């Protein structure tokens, strides 16, 4: 009986949506759209100095993102010396590996990168639920069938939270925003020890 109670409690807690747990209140989703402007200018070559901490190792290089056409982006990674590590294409919901080093050619890794970069390059999303407190709007949407929450402050996208079972799985922070360019981006995973730090050197 006690077990049942505990598991009931647990069920109730885990059923609460992520924003509600963060003390946001539901409001009307119909009026809102999600727009991510940070990789939306086709005339720009977006270049970021990247520092990746995975478990106890650190890697660095350049993350290069280019909008090729409407709903099409290239995402490539090179070392500082120019050696290409990988090169991906995102078209609508399709994903293609143009190149990847044999050493990195692992399904798990490619999947993580694919999900993370998909969030960066997706520009327009349909809102399924909407929450807010006084200052922040939290818009719920789904990417690859996973719930994502977009945080809008002063009509600026400041963070995205990818959740699993109502718990934060990946956090995307857009910092030092200037004219639709996020000078700094942090991607933090909470279920694996992986953090990606990006600093814009867009020329």
């Amino acid at each position, binding site marked *: 009986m006690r077990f049942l109670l505990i598991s009931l409690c647990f069920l109730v807690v885990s059923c609460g949506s992520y924003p509600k747990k963060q003390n946001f209140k539901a409001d009307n989703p119909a009026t809102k759209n999600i727009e991510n402007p940070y990789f939306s200018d086709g005339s720009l070559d977006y*270049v970021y100095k990247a*520092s990746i901490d995975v478990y106890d190792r650190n890697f660095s290089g350049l993350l290069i993102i*280019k909008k090729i056409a409407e709903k099409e982006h290239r995402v*490539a990674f090179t070392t500082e010396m*120019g050696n*290409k590590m990988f090169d991906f294409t995102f078209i609508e919901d399709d994903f293609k590996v143009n190149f990847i080093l044999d050493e990195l050619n692992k399904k798990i890794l490619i999947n993580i990168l694919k999900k993370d970069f998909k969030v960066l390059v997706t520009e327009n999303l349909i809102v399924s639920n909407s929450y807010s407190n006084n200052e922040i709007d939290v818009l719920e949407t789904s990417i690859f069938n996973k719930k994502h929450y977009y945080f809008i402050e002063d009509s600026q996208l400041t963070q995205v939270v990818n959740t699993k079972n109502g718990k934060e799985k990946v956090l995307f922070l857009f910092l030092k925003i200037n004219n639709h360019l996020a000078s700094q981006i942090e991607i933090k995973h909470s279920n694996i020890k992986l953090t990606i730090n990006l*600093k814009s*050197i867009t*020329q």
Partner: protein
Amino acid sequence: MRNFVFILFFISLAVQAQTKMSVTEAESLKTLVKQQALTTKTISSNFTQYKHLDFLSNDIVSKGKLAFKTPDLVKWEYTDPYNYVIIFKNETLFINDEGKKNQVNMGSNKLFKELNGLIINSIKGDMFDDEAFDITYFKKDKNSQVHFIPKDKKSSKFISEFQITFNEKGDVLEVKMIELSGDFTKIVFNNKELNKPLADAIFTN
């Protein structure tokens, strides 16, 4: 018809800008570069790196300084648009990424060793290894350009061709590394000084 003559004229100009060397010319360039490589104990140079990716509007440009000391100490110091130092020393790679220091032992990594060897040889220009490369020689105005195509399938997966441009003295002006996809990295050296004394301390992280 006049257009056709014009086009022909321009084509012949373009061909003239880069012509194949005769066997004797190629031999004398080889001797010159090898001689130069033998007498080069240190190299200090500024460099500009152009990373060309076909899908970008512009090449990604970075700048810095190169230091080389025989037999195998190499330091690439990027200063613009970021600070990044990579030192090749013995079998270890020392990295300083804006203060974050890291080192990688290359002892177990055959590929890295090969890459390091290639880097040193291409800085000196001495890559004339017919066993490892298919080599073709070109004249380009006063300069020479040599194309090295790796015979080994494994290394050609990364770099399908090296193109090194030499001046009349047999000094390396430019190294271009072309990937299978056609994307490339081009490094242009300037203010190059040979045999300026370099302390070993320069090559510590």
